[in-house]
Structures are given as C-alpha cells and as structure tokens.
C-alpha cells in the first residue's frame, strides 16, 4: 500500500473542498477501495473520510418517493420497512450481494461506485485499460468467464459488479451530488454510467471531486417485483446474470415493465427494447422470447463467457413467467 494522508471533514461542503488533488479519494465503508489500495490497483495520495457525515438517513418525500443518504449502510437499506414494502426488488438485490459483514460496512453511494471484478483489473502485472489507460485488455483473448457480453468495446469487457445498482436502474433512481464549487446536481441513473468505448477508465458522470450525497427513488410503481441473481455459489459471489424485474399485468395484458440486468454489461443494463417487447402484450412464452431476443440481439461472447447469453435468455424468460404468473 502506498502511504497517504487522511482528512476527516465535518460537513459535505468541507469534504468536497478537501478533495483538492487529483490523487485524492473519498472513503466511506472502504469495502472495495481498501482492498484495491492493498493491491495498489488504487493508489490515492489522500483519503477524505466521509463515513461520519450526516448522510445516513432514509426520508420519505412528499411525492411519495424516498431519499436515501449516500452513507446509509447496505444492511440498513435492505431492512428498511419502506424499502421492503414498496421497493422489494431493491431489498432483495442488496441482500443478494456480498456478505453480512460487508453489507454492514458498505454505503449506498459507494455501492454505486464499485469497481469491476475483472480478474485482470486486479492483477497489476496484466494489461488493463481501465487501470492503466492504453495498456491493453488482457481479458480479451484471456479467461473472461465473469465478464461482459453487452456494451463491450475492443478496449474493455469488464462488468459492473453491483446488485443494488441493477435494482436502482429498474427503479429509475436519481443520484444527487455536491460539486467542489458547491453546486448540486441531480443525475438520472440512466445517465450516470458510461460505456467503456475507448475510455474505460471513465466509468460514470461524476466530475473530479464530486460527492454523491443522496439517491432518490421515485414513488413506487405498480407491479410485481423480483430480483433473480444467478451465481456460481449460493452466497458471496458476483452475478453471472441477474435480472431486476418490475412488471404489472392488468386485465391479462402487461401494463408496464421495468427490467434491468446485472452481470451482462459494463454498467447495470437496461434496454427499452426489452420493455417494448412486453408492454401491451398478453404474457406468453413467445412474448418473453421476444423480450430475450431484444435484450441479447447485440450480445457478443468472448469465449469463456459465451454461456452467459443462453443463461441470460433462460433466466429472463423464467423471471418473466414468475412476475406475470404466466
């Protein structure tokens, strides 16, 4: 681990002022950043500890939605009675992730910013455009079982590892930030993540020194919710494929559908074409097949992850059967 300096500001405003060098990083739960620092994948020269800031509350808004402080631990968010009752898909996604100990430490804001679990990102001797821009991608042509089949580029095929963010994408969450100049921004989760393209090191819309302070969930939508995570072992494994589904069936017709996917792409994945294939149709295997075809039309396997394509198809169809009762 590189040596670093450490600040513990008292307010979010002070925190964004403390991020005054390009090598500084915010730290909250540290469940991902500390591991990466030990491996020298991340080498910040300064840590700004935001873990004690007053950003750990979950509040109801007048519009019926929830505002979640960026420092709400994953465990608390998963267990919150409002989340369990109205945003079941989020609670289930959170509980499908990591372990009890990690969920106690991990923050809501930090979870959105998890780095990829690509094997080669972790191996500082390997080429990785995300870790070291321009060095190449060892995962292409290498072992890539857990990596992406959607949204990849010739520079990077990493997956985003979060379960929580997949549910939040299905829930149309908004990310609220505070910038170094004191400005606040509200960023839709649909605009928050970036595809790798030729800059896989840029993973989201945050500017230097910009701090996530809250995550807003809109008022709950109608429909049956499910988070289905497929993984190699029963717990403590990242998703090979996951599906966050909120589907409402009225009078035998799919009235609304919101579907997001984990394990498939460089970001929590959502494709309007999948939902378009469902809405207005009576639930049937043919309709579900069409949704899966829409999801996977551009899917590309890289060898050891080829199986994710049929696995995603099967998992989506089975999940749609569950939530529609078809």
């Amino acid at each position, binding site marked *: *681990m590189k040596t670093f300096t450490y600040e513990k500001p008292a307010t979010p405003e002070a925190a964004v002022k403390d991020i005054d060098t390009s090598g500084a990083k915010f730290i909250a739960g540290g469940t991902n950043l500390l591991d990466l620092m030990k491996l020298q994948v991340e080498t910040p020269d300064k840590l700004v500890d935001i873990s004690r800031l007053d950003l750990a509350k979950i509040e109801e808004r007048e519009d019926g939605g929830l505002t979640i402080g960026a420092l709400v631990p994953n465990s608390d968010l998963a267990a919150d009675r409002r989340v369990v009752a109205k945003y079941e898909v989020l609670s289930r996604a959170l509980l499908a992730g990591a372990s009890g100990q990690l969920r106690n430490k991990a923050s809501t804001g930090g979870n959105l910013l998890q780095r990829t679990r690509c094997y080669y990102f972790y191996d500082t*001797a390997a080429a990785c455009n995300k870790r070291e821009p321009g060095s190449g991608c060892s995962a292409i042509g*290498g072992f890539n079982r857990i990596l992406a089949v959607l949204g990849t580029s010739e520079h990077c095929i990493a997956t985003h590892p979060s379960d929580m963010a997949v549910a939040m994408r299905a829930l149309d969450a908004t990310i609220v930030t505070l910038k170094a100049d004191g400005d606040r921004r509200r960023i839709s989760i649909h605009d928050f993540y970036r595809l790798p393209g030729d800059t896989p090191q840029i993973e989201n819309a945050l500017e230097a020194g910009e701090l996530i302070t809250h995550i807003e969930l809109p008022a709950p939508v109608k429909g049956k919710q499910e988070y289905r995570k*497929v993984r190699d072992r029963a717990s403590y494994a990242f998703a090979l494929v996951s599906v966050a589904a909120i589907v409402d069936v009225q009078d035998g017709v799919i009235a609304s559908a919101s579907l997001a996917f984990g394990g498939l792409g460089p970001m929590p994945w959502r494709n309007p074409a999948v939902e378009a294939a469902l809405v207005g149709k009576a639930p049937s295997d043919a309709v579900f097949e069409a949704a899966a075809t829409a999801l996977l039309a551009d899917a590309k396997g890289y060898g050891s992850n080829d199986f994710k394509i049929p696995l995603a198809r099967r998992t989506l169809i089975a999940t749609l059967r569950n939530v529609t009762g078809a």
Partner: protein
Amino acid sequence: MNEHVMDAAFRPGGLDRAKQGVLGLGLDRIEGPAKVSGVADYAYEGTPDGIAYAAIVGTPVGSGRILGIDISAAEALPGVIAIIHNDPRMPAGEANSRAMPLFDTDVILHLGQPVAIVVAEDQAIARDAAALVVVRTEGGEDRFDVEAQPVDTAPKIGFLPPIDNGDLDAVMADAAVTFDRTYTTPVHFPAALEPHATTAWWEGGKLTVRTSNQVIGGARKTIAKALKIDADKVRVLAPYVGGGFGGKTGVGPEAILAAIAAEVVGRPVKVALPRRQTAYMVHHRSHTTQRIRIAADANGVILGMGHESVVAQNDDGEFLEPVPFGTLPLYRGDARRFKTDLVRVDLPASGAVRAPGEAVGTFGVECAMDELAEQLGIDPIELRRRNEPETDPVSGKPFSTRRMLDCYTQGAERFGWPANVPAPGSVRDGKWLVGIGMAASLRGNFTVEAQARVRLEADGRATVECDMTDIGTGTYTILAQTAGEMLGLPVAEVNVRLGDTDFPPSAGSGGSFGAGSACSAVVLACEDILGELALRMNAAPEDLSLHDGCVSAGGRSVKLADLVRGEPIVAMGKTGPGVESKRTSQASHGAHFVEVAVNAVTGETRVRRMLGVFDVGRVLNRKTATSQITGGMAWGIAYALSEEGIVDTRTGAFVNPDFGEYHVAVNADIPQLEVHFIEEIDDSANPVGAKGVGELGISGAGAAVANAIYNATGVRVRDFPVTLDKLLEGLPAV
C-alpha cells in the same frame, strides 16, 4: 523411553483397562477459548522488540532467466531498511514441494518466484517498496499450457510406483462389459485461512522461527540446512496453526527469507504472504487428466481396472500427484494398471494438498463406477458390493480392518437409499431437478515415528509435551483425552504443550498420521508412568485402577498427588511403523450419500443433504473427528461445484488467486452434514488403534455430488468442477 514399533498387532494394557472414560468423548477443543478470545498467538502475531516487516518480491515473468535486479527506487522509499536479493542461501523453488528448495539460481521456474526480500519499518512500506523493485529478465520458451506439453510416461519422481498386473488390454478386449472414459480435475489451492507467515529472530547465534507450519520437526531441519547451520541452532515454534491442508507441510520460502533478513538487519523480522502471492509461493494440487478403464463380466464383477493419469510439475518439484492411490485397494480385479505420467511446466510447484491422490482420484474412479452401474443396469451400491475385495487386490495382503460393506449398508439405510434409484432427470420438485448419488471413500493409513513426554506433576496433574502441531484439528484435545484416559484424570487436569521443537519430536500434522501416531506415543509414555505408580502401590500394573485423580489397588486408594511425593514422574513414549505395518494393508473407509437439487432453468446446483458412514478405527474425540470429516465433505462439495485454479496460458499467471474468484464453499453452499462412525479399534495400525480421519472425508465426497448431479439432470460432466455452464445445454428447454 517406552518404545513400541508396530512389529505385531498391539493394544497397550493400560489403555484396555482405563476407566476414566474421556477418550472418544465429543469434547470441545480445549484451546477454543484462547482462540476465540484472541489470546492464542499465531505466527504473524506478537511483536518482539525492534520488529521489522518484510515483503517478498517475485519474478514478473514465468520463464527465462533473471539478468539483474534494480533496487534503487525501492531503496529510496523512506522507511526501507534493507533489500536482500543476492544472498546465495535464498530459496528459489518452493521448499514445500520437496525436501529442500533450489538456491542461488538465475533460472526462472515460474511467475512469482521469490527473488528478493524487502525489510521496512512497517508492512505497507515493505509491500510498496517490493512493488518498486525491478527484476530484469530474459525470456525463454514457456510451458504454461499443461495440455500442450509432451508427456513423460516414465517420470523419475513420485512415491507411487506404477502397477501393471495382468494384461489389461487383453482383458478389456475379451470382457462382456467394458468402460473407458477420461475425467479431468483442475488446479486446487490449499487455501488455509491463516496466512503463510513467519516471525524470525536471532539471539547469540541461535535462530528462533515462529511460523505457520504443519510439521515443525522437519521444518527445523530444512531451515538449518538452507542456512547452513546446525539444527540445534534452530528452534521452530508453531503453537497454533490456522489451517494447512498440505500447504504448510514443508517450509515455505518466506520462513527462510525471514531468517536471512533478520540476520542481515540484526532485528526480528516478520513476513506474511498476501493472499494473491500465496498462490505462487505455496504449492497447489496439480490438475489431473484421468483415464479410467474397467473390464467386467455380465454381472458387473470387475476383471480388470486401469487408472492412468497425467499430472503437472515444474522443473524444481519432485512431487507427483499420486492420483490412483485410493483406487489401488478399492475394488477387485486381477488385471490392474495404475500409473501417473508427467508434464513439466513453468508454473508454481504442485504438491501435497489434503488427501493427495484420493481427493481427485476418486472423481475418476467413483464417477466411473456410477457410470458402469448404469451401463449394467444395477444399483451403484450393489456394483460396489460385488467388487469388494477380500484381500488387498494389488499386494494380496490382508486388510488390518475393513468395514466398507458396513459403511454401504448403514449409509444406505440411514440415508434412505431407494431400492430402485429413479432414472436420471426424472425427479422434479418445482423448478428443481432432484437427484441422489453415492461414492466410496478410502484413505490409506499411515503410522509414523512419534515421541511424547508425559509428566505426572507434584500436584497430581499431568503435562504432555511434544512438537506436534494442532492445525485446527483438535490435537491439543485428543492428547489431553489420551493422557487423561491412561492416568485417570479429567481432561482439565491435563496440560498439553505443542508446537515447539524443544519438545520431543512427534509426527506433525500431515497424511492423516498425526492423531494416531502422536496419541500412541502418549499412551506408551503413560504406560511407563503406570508401571512406576504400580511399584509405588506395591501392585502389578494390571491391578491398578485409576479414576478422577485417584489410584486404587488391593483395596487401597491414594490420590495421585500423594503418590507422586513431590518429584514429578516423567516418562517418554515412542512409536513407529514396523513389520505389522507392512504385513497388512491399512486404510480408513467410508461411503458418502448425497441429494442435490439442480435449478432446471439455470443449472445452479444446491446440495440438499449429505451423509457419510466411516470406518476409522478408534475414535479419539467424536466431535473433532466429525469436524474433520465434515470439513472434508464441505471441501468435496466445493471441488465438485466450484473450486478451480485457472492459469492464463499466455503468461503463466493464475487468473483467480484470491477468495473473490477462487470459490471455496461458503456456509450457504453446505447443507446439514451427517457423519456416523463404525468404530473397530485397529490393533495393527498403531498402539492407540486409530486410523486416519483428516483426509478421509474429502475422499469420494465430490464424486458423490457429481453422481447426484447426473442423477438429477441426466447430464454427465467429466470435466470438474461441475459449474452451471457445463450443464446448461443438457437442461430442459425453458
């Protein structure tokens, strides 16, 4: 010294007559409170005055030669004390895989080979500086892909000679039923939870090494030889070891490097391998390719069997995974061909990992038996019954004790094995495909030389001392139970001191020989003490009765403390293998039974229940023995479902050298595991009559799971582990 080598079957009289009733009880581990309260000090813990911290530098490439090492950037880092890279005593290979590492070489055997040690004021600085050391290399031809290397069909290494009895090819050609399939298993890491770590310091020319090691007597000799000093100048301490699984049987390079560094900087030095480095500086279990051939008559009686494998090793390693070790005495059949071929690779050393041979060899033979049973249309247990040998099918030797048939019978009954096993893929429970499977379990039994000192103290309590290790297995407890049983003392009255080479040399923990050998030495020492007590009681030893700290004979009862009269009674015991060990064929046996559910959509496998019945000789502690077996069963489940060390054949690097992506089982993967013992004391094995337990549970466990997956899905995967991607194509359409 009361010495008894196993030249004939033997049961010590004192043990037969003992009345305390503690041996065999399922007592909690006596060192447990020290561990859970943090008092137990492991190798990396404790901070001798003036401690410095070290990190090891590995080669950045996996083949070729080292041209030079540039330490200037690393040296410039504040807090760096020394960087040592040119000491001729520095090990290059993994001592673990052989008696001695390779020294003073510029040849690169594998990626991550140790080439320098950085000593600094704290661990973070040491590791940061290690990353700044530049190792200049010259590339060589690399051999990273095991599949692509030439096969040496007559390797000069390995302890298991090839066996070629009868003419298997001819028997295969003539037999009514034949089977010929190939199975593969991947690299497995030993993956102990406690890091491979050492704290080393010198005092007046004497070296003390506190290290995480399974066999410290051997470690002492290896370290002394490496440093070119006398063994009596080296003291090795390992009072607590947080798991070894074979990875800590030898001396890792970190122990020798720490000792060199401590000498160079004149301060105590501690080093722990980070998890990712552990994959490179500790040996792993080789991948295996196993061809199983079976020739049988129409009734399934085996006429010939072949178990021929290919495994990998690097140019330094001398260990050859003994794949067919467990198959040798398992089934009848006169024509027998068992051999293991070798490919040389430029990868970290392969070595002994829990149940070398059986842990992976049973995947081949026990899945093959399942396939053969289906081919013949008979129950897999019945097939095994028809092939139960009466004597060792290779050597013709009598078995010391063998209760395999009882394991099948009791296991089937307790599990509820049906008279007719449902057809593959025919049982459905909602979205789950349900199946059952079984496999035999076998692990060769060994007794090794072991000594122990037992002191009956002035206060009537007893102290047991030997250089045995407790690697989380329960050694402290079973030694206390053994001495308590012999001397008529509650376990709380027995103080056990282990893990110090100043104590009498014992067996160490490895090869499942530790418990039987070490406890036997204690029994023999106690026999001596009983003799002395008998003299003091004016009675014959066989007339003594000892219970709860009192000794009675001829109507007189005396407290032990009164009989000791101030001066402790000290005795030494020693056991070892002998004629009887060679006259008989010895093994522990068992049978695993498993029910799995496979998700019909995704292929995710969840083990629903697992039960095993095991023949292990005398059970020394029902609880710790059960834990040994369940640990093996859990590992077998992980071998069947997820554990796989993956090599990037472009670089010779491991792709997944950490617990994030090398998937050991987690609690949620493991259902209730049920263990039953058939206890027949084995008087041929060792004086205490116990056979090995530690490696039995993993033997056959994974094959039973794989067989159940086949029964659930109708998909036979022969390339382990059985991950969901391999099942997907054969699952019902959605």
